[in-house]
């Protein structure tokens, strides 16, 4: 078959098959199944109001996962374990800057995004120029951030979220949905456009898939990778601000709970940790899936040991829907 005559029949068959294999379809199906299960286990679980609240929580995770997603897509074992530290730092800094006043929101956002970007930059430099493996670089950075949090908390009194920020995160904003949901949708649209319709996006996939070939074809690999870490830091910072809005006050180590879940959300969204393929739409579904799973487990009345065993086992079973690597035998 030559370029001039694409095979119509084959393509149709292929895209039908692809559709079924789309991670996002899998994720949505699993979400539906979990909601049904949740409603059966504890009536009221799948009420509109509760789903909306779960979506807020999912949005917080999803925003962190957006940066995580980019870093992972960029390949070379890309991963960002420092997101938890950046979320915490951002929440604390934002709380101090706004200190309960709406006027502080804009400066807080600017400052936090800059801080997030700065730490992303350091991660990126470590990974590209010093060639430290991302897992280790960002793990080291997490240690540094945890230390920095202690220092920072010493130096500045912690403040509260501005009312407008809290309202944005928790109260209906437009069409009955809180602002953070709209923000998340906006980020989703931004990510989709970035990944599919910009040169930057195509280059992310290129470096994630074959870094050397990409470099030979003129892709600025280091610059790209540094940018991905910067974006990851920025997304984590935004999540930190939102988290401040969600919990009203800033407090230590608030972000740690996002470190590994953000990676799992990406995987449940169909982006393998090896990078080079996948996307953010799936990750959004993955975040929702993970949050629903966790909240079902909270509501089941079993002891913590049982909860953990069920949680871990469910994660494994869900991974079977996605993460299975290629058989070595073709």
């Amino acid at each position, binding site marked *: 078959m030559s370029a001039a005559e694409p095979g119509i029949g084959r393509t149709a068959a292929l895209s039908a098959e692809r559709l079924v294999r789309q991670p996002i379809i899998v994720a949505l199906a699993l979400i539906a199944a979990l909601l049904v299960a949740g409603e059966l286990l504890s009536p009221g679980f799948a009420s509109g109001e509760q789903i909306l609240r779960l979506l807020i929580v999912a949005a917080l995770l999803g925003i962190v996962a957006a940066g995580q997603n980019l870093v992972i897509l960029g390949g070379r074992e890309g991963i960002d374990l420092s997101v938890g530290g950046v979320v915490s730092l951002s929440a604390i800094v934002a709380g101090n800057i706004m200190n309960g006043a709406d006027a502080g929101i804009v400066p807080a956002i600017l400052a936090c995004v800059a801080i997030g970007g700065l730490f992303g930059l350091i991660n990126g430099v470590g990974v590209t120029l010093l060639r430290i493996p991302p897992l280790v670089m960002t793990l080291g950075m997490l240690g540094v951030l945890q230390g920095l949090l202690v220092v920072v908390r010493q130096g500045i009194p912690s403040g509260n979220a501005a009312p407008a920020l809290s309202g944005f995160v928790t109260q209906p904003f437009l069409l009955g949905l809180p602002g953070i949901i709209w923000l998340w949708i906006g980020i989703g649209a931004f990510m989709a456009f970035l990944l599919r319709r*910009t*040169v930057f996006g*195509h*280059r992310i996939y290129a470096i994630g898939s074959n870094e050397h070939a*990409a470099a*030979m*074809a003129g*892709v600025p690999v280091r610059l790209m990778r540094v940018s991905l870490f910067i974006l990851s830091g920025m997304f984590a910072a935004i999540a930190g601000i939102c988290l401040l809005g969600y919990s009203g006050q800033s407090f230590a180590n608030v972000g740690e709970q996002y470190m590994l879940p953000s990676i799992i959300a990406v995987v449940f969204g169909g982006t393998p940790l090896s990078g*080079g393929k996948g996307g953010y739409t799936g990750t959004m579904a993955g975040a929702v899936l993970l949050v629903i799973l966790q909240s079902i487990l909270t509501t089941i009345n079993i002891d913590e040991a049982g909860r953990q065993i069920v949680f871990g086992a469910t994660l494994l079973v869900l991974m079977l829907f996605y993460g299975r690597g290629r058989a070595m035998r073709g």
Partner: protein
Amino acid sequence: MAKLQVRGARKAYGATIALKRGDMVLESGEVHVLIGSNGSGKSTLCKIISGSVRPDAGEVIIDGRPVTVTGPQMARELGIGIFYQELSLAAHRTVAENISLARLPANAGVFVDHAAVGATAERYMAPFADVLGDGFAADTPVVKLRADQRQLVEIMKTLATEAPVLIFDEPTSALDSAQVERFFDVLRKLRGEGRSIIFISHRMDEIFAIGDRVTIMRDGETVTTMALSDADHDMVIRAMVGGQEALIATGNADDEGTRRTGKTILSVQNISGPGFSEISFSVAAGEIVGFGGLHGQGQSSVLRALFGASRRQAGTITLNGTPYTATAPRAAIRQGMAYISGDRGHDGVITDRPILENVTPVHFLRNRLTFAFPGRLRAAVLPALQALRTKYATLSHPISSLSGGNQQKIVIARWLTDPPQVLLLDDPTKGIDLATKTELFALIRELAEKGMAIILYSSEDSELLTNADRILVFSGGAIARELTGADRTRYNLYHAAYEAA
């Protein structure tokens, strides 16, 4: 009774049918050549025999007994050893360890017997002793070896299986002629011992030099098998291309060497770098300059240095009369350089990504694009793809769905979408079938005629001789001789390469 027989082997990857009907009969004591254009299913057939691909249908019969090859381990037990086209080496293990990897000799069944590993390595290195090249030793990690040396390791590894059936899937694509000769000596000896050998190559002279019989494949099907003693080049090529007109590589280089009329585009003075020193030459518009010589004499290094992909320490380069200082591929591309490498796995293919995304990266850079709208991109890349007669289903299929040769065409199309000023060809036809090669060189000549300056390095002498207007013969990182006009003969080429070496 035939040693090995494959009947009706079939393999599909999703919608792509890699192998429709693979049949072949391998006798004891023969070198059986498998030939066919890129994507005709040769590698797939071999991998089915060696167990690393699971067939959808068909049977494998060894010594008259049908077998189920459930994997490479099983294949070994059945007495099948294979050289993989893409190699199967562990980069950080030593040459010796790689040679014995599958069956590491062990003391007490647990501890590696290093003495035995070393002895095995020495045994299989011996026949190649004088063509191994610098830095090749039993305890060298493979990662430190050049491409041709790695191919030799893979050959030794295959030989070390001591299997009655040996399969060699393009084992010579990176070897120089001396290395090929040594290898053929070994094959002849093995044939004499009664072993059965399958040999794949796109080089016609090699096929006739070593083969007893040939099985020809086309579009995933076995077409015919014939004795090579009864055949000539033309017959084989006709069978390969089927109804189409036989395409034979025709020399289109200027016999008189008078084409150097265009103005000088690229001028290189006394550049040095890792693997080469004091290199000077120039290339005019419309000219194809060939780099020749044995392997690893600095040809690739010079090309990579020109492209900014490796370091260069001294000397000056001018491009169109202005100093050229690119120290990274990006800068080189911006200034109109293009570099096509034969090592597509490493330098070329963006694995798992759609065909379209594999063509566009250079286009993005040359046009300083920010947005990527598929419609416009498709329009931009189609001419180059069509000119190369690339076979693919749709542009959104992953590039991994194509055969090696077609993948290479996609990579080449990447560089021709926006025509460069200087085209650096670093053994670009590795793994490309004959018909495509001919088309490709016709296209290259066409590009030259439009005023491009082209440097061609090829590991195949005939390719250089038929396509280059001048040949710079490299030896030990320097230019040993320049062949122009009527001097461009195989004899002169060999003479220059070996005398200097």
